[in-house]
């Protein structure tokens, strides 16, 4: 199986856990990201994930390879849901197994942080109030409308054009 994978059906944590088993490993760290019922003070009813699959698979696998290389962990996997998800559902799973716990914790943290920042996956929140919004996009769109540089500097999504 590809180290990074996209799924449009419920993730099986048991199957994913099996992929980490390794007789040379003494520790395993798993992070699960769940759909929360609120964000930025607004009640969320459900989420919708969308991915640019070929590049998401490629970039996700690069992150996992980096994690294995940097932290010397044995196995590292990440699975991400796409499609419509209800509150409480498992949206992203990443697991690492290693000889010792230290590098497993560090690698798992690295993977989930990098995945959130680099992999072309987008999340739309549907709110209780009936409207919806793409996380991280709306503020940029609003900023562009106002032709202002204030308000979004430092939120980490601006990309160099040169």
């Amino acid at each position: 199986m590809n180290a990074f994978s996209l799924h449009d059906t419920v993730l099986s944590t048991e199957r994913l856990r099996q992929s980490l088993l390794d007789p040379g490993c003494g520790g395993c760290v798993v992070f699960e990201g769940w759909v929360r019922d609120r964000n930025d003070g607004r009640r969320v009813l459900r989420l919708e994930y969308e991915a640019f699959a070929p590049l998401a698979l490629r970039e996700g696998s690069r992150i996992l390879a980096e994690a294995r290389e940097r932290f010397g962990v044995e196995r590292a996997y990440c699975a991400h849901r796409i499609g419509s998800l209800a509150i409480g559902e498992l949206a992203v799973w990443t697991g690492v197994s290693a000889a010792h716990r230290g590098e497993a914790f560090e690698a798992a943290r690295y993977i989930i942080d990098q995945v959130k920042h680099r992999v072309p996956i987008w999340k739309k929140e549907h709110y209780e109030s009936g409207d919806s919004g793409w996380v991280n996009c709306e503020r940029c769109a609003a900023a562009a409308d106002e032709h202002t540089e204030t308000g979004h500097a430092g939120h980490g999504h601006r990309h160099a054009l040169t």
Partner: protein
Amino acid sequence: MSKAPLYGLVLAGGHSRRMRRDKASLDYAGRPQLARAVELLRARVARCFVSIRADQHQDPQRDGYDSIMDLLPDLGPIGGIHAALAAHPDKAWLILACDLPFLDAATLDHLIAQRSETHIATAYRSSHDGLPEPLCAIFEPASRVVIEHWLEQGQHCPRTLLARSNALLLEPISASALDNVNTPEQYAAAAAQLAGDTPPTSGTQPPADPHSPDGARPAHAAHSLRLTVRYFALLREQAGRSTEALQTQACTPLQLYQELRRLHGLALDPQFLRVAINDEFGDWHARLSDGDTVAFLPPVAGG
């Protein structure tokens, strides 16, 4: 000061990817296009050359013409222009693309008559969008340093070069003389016209819609690219589609995005986006190639 002598160069070093056949060998009214272009040019310049890639050195279609080989590989048309100016730096060069079957003597004669040596180049404006047409144009010796500087900056688009430089731009004297032919369908239509049945309907056809699929007639948009664009998330919703095929004058993803931003009213400023070319992250200033798929990626939010 007298004008520098005028040499001619037919650009025949392209890959003809969309045509899937060598454009230089395409037959119009019984003659291959390369021979037609050379003949038209040769009568008007002191010497005439054909621009080739290194791997076309022994190509039979190009054999028999004086040739100038690209010095720098894979630069497209500007590589040919650069090589010619380097080979004969004291000459001015009349550059002709090899995919202009409707080009006529009057268009070349007018270009030569209007030539200005106080500009780095003399070119026509496109009858389609008013932008310079760099591939039927005269480049003066002074353009050499400008082009070298352009290449050093990683830029390759000759149209943008002329648009930003001190070039004399002429109004076209014929609406269709610079229509180029990129696809088998366009070739079939152009060949039929030139076979004599229907003369080119100069100025009577509406300009081609640059965002519609190729019609069965030559594209008005000379030297344009056929691209596929993919949209995601907020951009997909604003564009009202997840993918589109289009023909564009844009040379880089940034130019393309600016064009599409106006067309679809996209809210996101490019500084917030990343671009992918053929399913890999790319550069906003990369030179796009015919057939590329370009994706514009809004700020991501996985996890």
